[in-house]
């Protein structure tokens, strides 16, 4: 391994420690004053009536938008900073030679901390296969990485509370681990595109890039800013629709259509979720409002898992490295897992 050091071209920046310190203090102050402030804004300054449809909808919007933004900016910066230490190139080394069982569990867990963008899916897949990581272990990672992602977890934690966020994480890990096992057992290696096998052993040694804390903090902040900027419109639309549902939809409307007595509700929400690929930011606020109007927890979980886990663009990209039968098995296994989770929670939580 070669080691490179980052030089820096001189340019004026305010001292990083000062900027970071001020940001943290501002974040904490905003976090604790956000709820009373938005309440005051809605009901005192704007003079809206408590309990009225319009008033409740606006208050919901004013409460949720700053809360979600603060959570996303704060937590994603921290998560990105931490996971900078776990690039897939290192994870690969840790996964190789762990065997089927240990490897699958480890791969699913690594999926939580490692970054995943669908444009990286193919190089990642090739890298794993090249390192001799079994197919089942690779898929455990490919299932868990987008599904148990930080945007979904942060939004769930902030809008639904820690309980549901942890349940979602556990359910996502379970689907990834079981899905990985199943795909591993099916012995589908021949459905990986031939050129992927031909690439084996060609990879030269990786370069270890030395990053300073300053580089890491800047990287994390730039990444977070870009990400939040990109999903902001969806968040605003999502919270807006959520606010309308919260203020105007009758309490029993959702329960009567999507309630537990309707067995088709779980598969229907999974189908609905497919075109909303990876758009956890916009869908979770809507789902929060629906849950408040009587959508059962299992159905809710199925919907959110399907939004993050099954994405059409990702499938199209993965098609470049795996053949259709394996792609179909991948979708089938993930969908089955999500359906089981949905029915299970609807059944367990009376």
């Amino acid at each position, binding site marked *: 391994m070669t080691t490179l050091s980052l030089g820096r071209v001189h340019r004026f920046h305010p001292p990083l420690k000062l900027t970071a310190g001020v940001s943290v203090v501002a974040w904490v102050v905003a976090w604790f004053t956000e709820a009373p402030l938005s309440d005051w804004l809605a009901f005192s300054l704007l003079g809206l009536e408590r309990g009225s449809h319009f008033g409740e909808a606006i208050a919901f919007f004013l409460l949720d938008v700053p809360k979600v933004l603060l959570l996303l900016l704060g937590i994603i910066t921290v998560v990105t900073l931490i996971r900078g230490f776990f690039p897939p190139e290192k994870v690969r080394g840790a996964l190789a030679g762990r065997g089927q069982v240990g490897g699958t569990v480890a791969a699913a867990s690594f999926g939580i901390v490692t970054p995943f963008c669908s444009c990286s899916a*193919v190089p990642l897949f090739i890298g794993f296969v090249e390192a001799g990581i079994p197919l089942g272990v690779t898929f455990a990672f490919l299932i868990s990485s987008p599904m148990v992602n930080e945007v979904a977890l942060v939004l769930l934690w902030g809008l639904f509370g820690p309980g549901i966020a942890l349940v979602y994480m556990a359910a996502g890990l379970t689907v990834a681990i079981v899905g990985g096992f199943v795909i591993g057992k099916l012995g589908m290696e021949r459905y990986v595109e031939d050129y992927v096998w031909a690439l084996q052993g060609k*990879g*030269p040694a*990786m*370069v270890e890039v030395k990053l300073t804390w300053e580089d890491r903090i800047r990287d994390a902040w730039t990444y977070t800013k870009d990400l939040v900027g990109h999903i902001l419109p969806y968040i605003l639309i999502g919270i807006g629709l959520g606010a309308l549902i919260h203020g105007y939809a009758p309490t029993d409307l959702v329960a009567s259509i999507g309630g537990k007595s309707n067995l088709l509700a779980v598969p229907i929400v999974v189908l609905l979720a497919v075109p909303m690929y990876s758009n956890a930011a916009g869908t979770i606020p809507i789902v929060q409002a629906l849950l408040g109007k009587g959508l059962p927890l299992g159905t809710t979980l199925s919907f959110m898992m399907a939004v993050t886990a099954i994405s059409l663009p990702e499938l199209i990209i993965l098609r470049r490295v795996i053949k259709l039968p394996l792609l179909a098995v991948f979708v089938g296994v993930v969908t089955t897992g999500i359906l089981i989770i949905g029915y299970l929670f609807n059944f367990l939580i009376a």
Partner: protein
Amino acid sequence: MKKIEVLGPGCNNCVRLEANAREAVAMAGVEAEVVKVTDYGQIAAYGVMSTPGLVIDGKVVSYGRIPSAGDIAVWLSE
């Protein structure tokens, strides 16, 4: 004449890295050509799994992040 390769299938991050690389060439005042590598096989051949990756004269200098034009300029002048 240096050769800079930007590894990535063409997502936003790769486009930004390419822009930074071109800016860096101007900053460093060296002669260099910037090439995009979008073929997955070639990207994998460099051992890069997280895109975008940056290669200068056949050597991987960065991956999974977007180095600033200033940093790339320093690498170019080395």
